[in-house]
């Protein structure tokens, strides 16, 4: 964050550094084929404006000239954008220059490159192009970072290899410790780069997991189709409203409503539910295919993990093994009921995105739980990974259980009580408080389930923490990646001697909480995960408690 001004300042004096004659130090352009992509994309983006100009122009004498000028302007701008964008990779920096009037130079130290994401949208794929996003672990939402939009696909792949493996040549290939003793026999020893091999040689790869078509059965349990379905419904409804079409006068709607008035209510409800389920399942399967078609997780000799996936937009995300600080096992309630789970990377420079699928951090898409556990264990390489991923967590005791259940049901219990009162005094139908009671019980169960997920474990060089019911998560976080600790206690937690201990980290979600751990255990966890940090702040416990 703070290094941004410094690196930009360095980039100003870049020509001096660039004069070393290194082959990679020349300024390079994006692929000329982008001249086809940019105008199309810009035109699509400006369709509302251009359409406005077209219709506005129709009334005046100038005819459609205005919209033509607009189109020419947009195309001209995209050509300028291509012509002014250059990048180069010097031995110690990655630099990108853009802009004609407002010149901007972005530079990042090469050893801070944490991830290289190669994406190809449909248009890109038709033209054999790919977009390369270089992650440096700096989060700035306003500015686009180091994005090279539009290189020929082979060039993009070569660039990724170049960027990710150059660091290895300095640090050496022996990044990984020994495999866990009880590791799954994968038949191949961990590869090391032979001496004298050029850095940009095609790295040997080891496949960790590949998508199995049978995993599609988990798609309907991810609820992603529900969100898509609602979005389509909302969009359709909105379009209908905008177009001023009276829905009641459309033929299909009329016949449907005739059909509806003839069928009994219960049958109608069943039909609707089944219909919705079918549609949502189909949408989920389609979404799963779009995102995860051809999913592969591989480990390269240079010490990077690579995820390749996608049907229309193909993505290849690389994560340096040293930047991988842990894994997150996510088991939402429905997926868990179907025996599935998915795995997300906890890596510096890769922030967990919306819905986790978008962030490029998925290590295993929804798949059988055993596979997810196995991959989690094989991806992590420090001592204790095996237990951190799969061993039962240490539970947080009766006070934590009480707190989970009370927090889950209390609002519903109060609502039920109020409804009971209304039923007895104001003659509310009895089924309303009864259904509220059912909800209370359901949430009680959720509270219980939350308690069952809750726990922590410090094992080897990992801290494992789990929580949640509807969205159950378990994280195995490398202690090395823990930056600091937050210990938060509400008034209720203080009374019960509990605390929420958050391990802060530069990776993934930035902080991973251990909820309702006893204060005594919290101190113990900190002392074991980050030895030495706490020693000055510890005192003997008073004997009165």
């Amino acid at each position, binding site marked *: *964050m*703070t290094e941004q001004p410094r690196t930009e300042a360095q980039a100003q004096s870049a020509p001096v550094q660039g004069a070393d004659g290194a082959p990679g130090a020349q300024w390079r352009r994006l692929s000329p084929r982008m001249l086809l992509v940019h105008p199309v994309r810009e035109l699509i983006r400006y369709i509302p404006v251009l359409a406005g100009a077209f219709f506005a122009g129709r009334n005046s004498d100038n005819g459609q000239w205005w919209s033509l000028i607009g189109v020419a302007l947009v195309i001209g701008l995209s050509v300028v954008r291509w012509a002014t964008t250059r990048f180069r990779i010097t031995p110690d920096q990655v630099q990108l220059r853009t802009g004609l009037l407002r010149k901007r130079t972005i530079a990042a130290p090469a050893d*801070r490159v944490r991830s290289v994401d190669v994406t190809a949208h449909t248009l890109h794929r038709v033209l054999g192009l790919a977009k390369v996003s270089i992650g440096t*672990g700096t*989060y700035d939402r306003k500015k686009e970072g180091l994005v090279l939009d539009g290189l020929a696909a082979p060039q993009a792949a070569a660039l990724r290899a170049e960027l990710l493996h150059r660091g290895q040549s300095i640090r050496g290939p022996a990044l990984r410790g020994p495999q866990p003793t009880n590791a799954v026999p994968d038949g191949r020893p961990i590869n090391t780069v032979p001496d004298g091999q050029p850095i940009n040689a095609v790295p040997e790869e080891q496949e960790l997991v590949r998508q199995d078509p049978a995993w599609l059965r988990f798609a309907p349990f991810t609820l992603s189709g529900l969100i898509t379905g609602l979005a389509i419904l909302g969009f359709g409804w909105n379009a209908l409203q905008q177009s001023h079409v009276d829905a009641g006068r459309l033929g299909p709607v009329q016949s449907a409503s005739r059909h509806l008035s003839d069928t009994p209510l219960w049958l109608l409800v069943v039909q609707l539910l089944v219909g919705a389920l079918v549609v949502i399942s189909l949408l989920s399967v389609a979404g799963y295919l779009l995102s995860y078609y051809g999913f592969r997780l591989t480990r390269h000799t240079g010490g990077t993990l690579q995820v390749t996936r996608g049907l229309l937009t193909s993505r290849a995300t690389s994560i340096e093994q040293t930047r991988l600080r842990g894994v997150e096992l996510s088991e939402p309630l429905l997926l868990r009921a179907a025996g599935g789970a998915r795995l997300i990377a906890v890596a*510096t420079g890769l922030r967990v995105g919306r819905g986790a699928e978008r962030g490029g951090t998925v290590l295993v898409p929804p798949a059988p739980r055993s596979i997810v556990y196995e991959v989690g264990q094989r991806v992590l390489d420090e001592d204790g990974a095996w237990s951190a991923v799969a061993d039962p967590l240490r539970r947080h005791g009766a006070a934590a259980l009480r707190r989970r259940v009370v927090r889950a049901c209390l609002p519903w219990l109060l609502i039920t009580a109020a409804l009971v009162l209304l039923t007895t005094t104001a003659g509310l139908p009895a089924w309303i408080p009864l259904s509220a009671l059912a909800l209370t019980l359901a949430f009680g169960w959720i509270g219980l389930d939350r308690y069952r997920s809750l726990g922590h474990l410090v094992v080897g060089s990992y801290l494992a923490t789990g929580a949640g019911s509807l969205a159950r998560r378990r994280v195995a976080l490398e202690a090395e*990646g823990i*930056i*600091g*600790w*937050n*210990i*938060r*206690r*509400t*008034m209720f937690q*203080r009374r019960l001697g509990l605390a929420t201990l*958050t391990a*802060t*980290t*530069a*990776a993934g*979600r*930035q*902080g991973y909480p251990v909820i309702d751990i006893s*204060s*005594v255990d*919290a*101190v*113990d966890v*900190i*002392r*074991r995960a*980050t030895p*030495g*940090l*706490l020693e*000055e*702040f*510890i*005192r*003997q*416990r*008073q004997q009165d408690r």
Partner: protein
Amino acid sequence: MDPEPMSVELRAPAHLVSRRAIAFWTVRALIGWIVIVGIQLVILIASGSTHHRWVNVLILACSVLLGAVHLIVMPRWRYRVHRWEITRTACYSQSGWITQERRIAPLSRIQTVDSERGPLEQLFKLANITVTTASAAGAIKIHGLDSSAADRIVHELTTIAALDGGDAT
């Protein structure tokens, strides 16, 4: 693993913040309450003498009472909770009142140290310090420090943090 893990606990950080912080917190909260009560007064006057007037008066009375309790209790409670300590190896703070939070970060992981003085803080010769780490969730903020003490802390922290190489992730 520990010989007697039950026998230790985390103590609070050593130093209290400036006593003037009580007045600062009071004034800051007072401004908020004046806005709330002011809006209610305007509504009360504008609505004239309808027969729902007593509801408005009741809400206003509740706000005034709640505000008074908040203004008396919160700053003093905060003053007893807000503490900080910086050692050779770590930065440790405690803040909050009803919900309290302790934050610890090793000095080797510190990225920036900012000190800030708002207009109100300047009035009370106070400053706050934000110590950021590479984690977005891990910034340590110390409020209500005496201005000169804050300057001293910033100087010390930047000197120590500058000694450390690496990217502190």
